[in-house]
């Protein structure tokens, strides 16, 4: 079966602005895929192209093997979309909007609708103009989750939700995954993506800078080690992958790339380890490295700029 989303070398200009600059994205059936990037990276633009709302300038994009621009109507039968900025009709109630969107997607399951309303604690009788941002988002989420779309495309779905509702959302996404649905969700919060996603694509300035499963990405991050040794470990930086070494008498601190962890620990034991603490690898740190300004957009992990 063809991939739910397969994008290669996508470019899109808005006048002079280059919103996408050769973006790649592959989403496999049944996975929850995170599209991660700072403000203005091109997440929403990518999603709009996938929805056939925008036409790409160049590059190949297919959904389920078909062209999102020319086969939009057919493709939309298989997906449900939650925009990043949900705008509702001021005079319609949330319940009415859920039903209208559901009807357009070919009907929704009333039991699931009621269940979701209850879980998201959403009052469907309020008019669109009176909902808060988070509640507007919930309206769109309930409409999308109550449909039986195979693919859910969610643009920053939790940006307006409180922590309690975020937990409900996490639960709903896990359920969707267990039902075999595919989810593409954009975000600029690593922790959220780490919690939900099987695979992640990090994009910046319209280009994919890193893509892979969480464990592959973890591999690219560094573990922080602090140890007390019987002999000063002052030449530990001969080991490849060790960064920011500081030796303070018997105490040694350093960061080590995921794929050199084993070698570094072996080397460390030769100094006689008396105490050891390690901070787990954090994707946040990897992500922050890509967030930063400058041209470090290569797929190679860069040396840390500053010691801790």
């Amino acid at each position: 079966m063809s991939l739910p989303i397969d994008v290669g070398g996508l470019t899109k200009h808005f006048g002079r602005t280059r919103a996408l600059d050769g973006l790649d994205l592959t989403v496999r059936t049944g996975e929850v895929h995170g599209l991660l990037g700072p403000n203005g990276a091109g997440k929403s633009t990518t999603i709009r192209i996938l929805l056939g709302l925008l036409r790409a300038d160049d590059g190949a994009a297919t959904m389920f093997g078909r062209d999102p621009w020319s086969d939009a109507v057919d493709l939309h039968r298989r997906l449900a979309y939650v925009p990043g900025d949900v705008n509702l009709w001021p005079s319609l109630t949330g319940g009415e909007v859920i039903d209208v969107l559901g009807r357009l997607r070919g009907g929704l399951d009333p039991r699931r609708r009621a269940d979701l309303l209850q879980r998201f604690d959403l009052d469907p009788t309020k008019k669109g103009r009176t909902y808060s941002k988070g509640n507007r988002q919930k309206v769109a989420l309930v409409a999308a989750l109550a449909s039986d779309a195979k693919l859910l495309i969610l643009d920053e779905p939790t940006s307006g939700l409180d922590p309690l509702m975020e937990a409900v959302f996490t639960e709903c996404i896990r359920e969707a995954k267990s039902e075999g649905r595919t989810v593409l969700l954009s975000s600029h919060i690593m922790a959220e993506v780490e919690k939900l996603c099987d695979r992640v694509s990090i994009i910046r300035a319209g280009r994919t800078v890193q893509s892979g499963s969480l464990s592959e990405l973890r591999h690219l991050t560094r573990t922080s080690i602090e140890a007390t040794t019987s002999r000063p470990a002052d030449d530990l930086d001969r080991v490849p992958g060790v960064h920011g070494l500081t030796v303070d008498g018997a105490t040694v601190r350093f960061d080590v790339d995921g794929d050199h962890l084993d070698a570094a620990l072996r080397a460390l034991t030769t100094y006689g380890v008396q105490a050891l603490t390690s901070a787990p690898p954090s994707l946040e740190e990897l992500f922050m490295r890509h967030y930063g300004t400058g041209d470090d957009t290569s797929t190679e992990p860069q040396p840390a700029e500053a010691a801790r």
Partner: protein
Amino acid sequence: MSTLTGTMHLARLNVRRDRVRLAVWLAALTGLLAATTAGIKSLYPTAADLAGYAETAGSSPAATALNGPGHAVDTAGGATVFEVGGYLSVAVALMSVLIIGRCTRAEEESGRLELLRANVLGRHAALAAAVIVMVAMNIAVGTAVAAIMTAFDVSAAGAATFGAALAGIGIVFGAVAAVTSQITEHVRGSNAIAGTVVAAAYVIRAAGDVGETGLSWLSPFGWVQATRPFADERWWPLLIALGAAALLVAMAVALQNRRDVGAGLVPQRPGPASASPTLLHQVGFSLRLQRASLIGWTVGVFLGGLAFGSVAREMEDIVAESDDLQEWVSAYGANPTEAFLALTLLLLSLAAAGCAIASALRITSEESAGRAEPILATPLSRPAWLLSHLVAPLAAAIVVPVAGGLGTGIAYGILTSDAEQIPRLAGAAMAHVPAVWLLTAATVLLIGLLPRLAVTAWAILAGCVVAAMLGSLIRLPDWVLELSPFEHTPRLPGGSMDVAASLTLTGLAAAVIVVGVVSFRRRDVR
């Protein structure tokens, strides 16, 4: 006072943001006044002409209901006030209501005010800034009106009184809006209530003036009318207006003290928890979104028809008095009464075109407000979505003129005791439907090809209005006139139906809509 911190800053911000809007109001109001004054001057150049006008125009109850009792109608200034005073005072009232709504409730509703108030704004700063802008704008209009009339060489004292009277009207109703904007949570509700107060005040004034009872003194329109510009000017009625405005603003402040930011005094009522079957149908959905404004237009044009129909008989005499008027009206038909009725139906159809354009432009506002996106991400195709939103304007092109024709027919039928007039005029009102369709189609074409410039559809309508109203007077070349579709529709009643032309316009409209839809399918959704 700390509750007013930042007021002037906010007032400047309001003016800066709305400078185009405010300038358009000023230009439109003064333009209307200048055109009317010039018209009166050229139609009735001598005192004898004016005396003749005063005899016919000033004496009919319908004209009194519409314009108020004439004061010194036998002077150019008094005649001008009698002709446009009513429209201008309603216009400044609505202008003030809209300014207050935009600067207070609309800001609050959008959440921008919250952002500002979190900084260094006093609690009453937004209201105070809105009132300042509103009062300043009314003073500007009043001054401009006085200056323009003086420039046309009418009594300066009368011109100044009339200018002050208009400013007074605006300030009173602006103050009314300051109160209503505290009551509802949404600017539309607040404007609707204030607009209803304007209408009610106008009706009370009309009833009072026709019955010559003291009822008019209950209406702000009655107060400022009592300043009698160009007759024996009196300024004291303006004090009532200013006193009332001050009381209303104080009331608005008191109400504001009792509520939260963003909240109203009247809470929002809950609506249905699930959609009705009609809403689930795409056409039902788009009609539902437009329901309120379509009903508003229909009722408004119907009332316009009633108003015009009720003066149709006097028009015969008025027209008979003036050669210039005769020449103007004769462009619409041979028989003066029929010509006036044909002109009325043409005007009402132009209003219907306004309704159709506004309704079609909903498509762009849905798009730019981001509400098209979730709908277009469903299996609904773009052409189907666009066409579903066209049902309302295309239907309005028929319903609104017919409502206007009914209104005209009812009023004229009662005056002439001839019930036949009702179906006759309602039918004749459909003469311009193909032209309205073509303007709707042009709007769709703009939406498809040049969405950013879609509002220029209004400029097309403005061109049609000029061609239809003044085309023969200002002697535009024929080929320019014929660009307006309304030049190709028959002048009914009186004229004869040109089936071929109507079919051509309809076919053209259909073709243009197709091009518009295809272009929309090909472009990015904004």
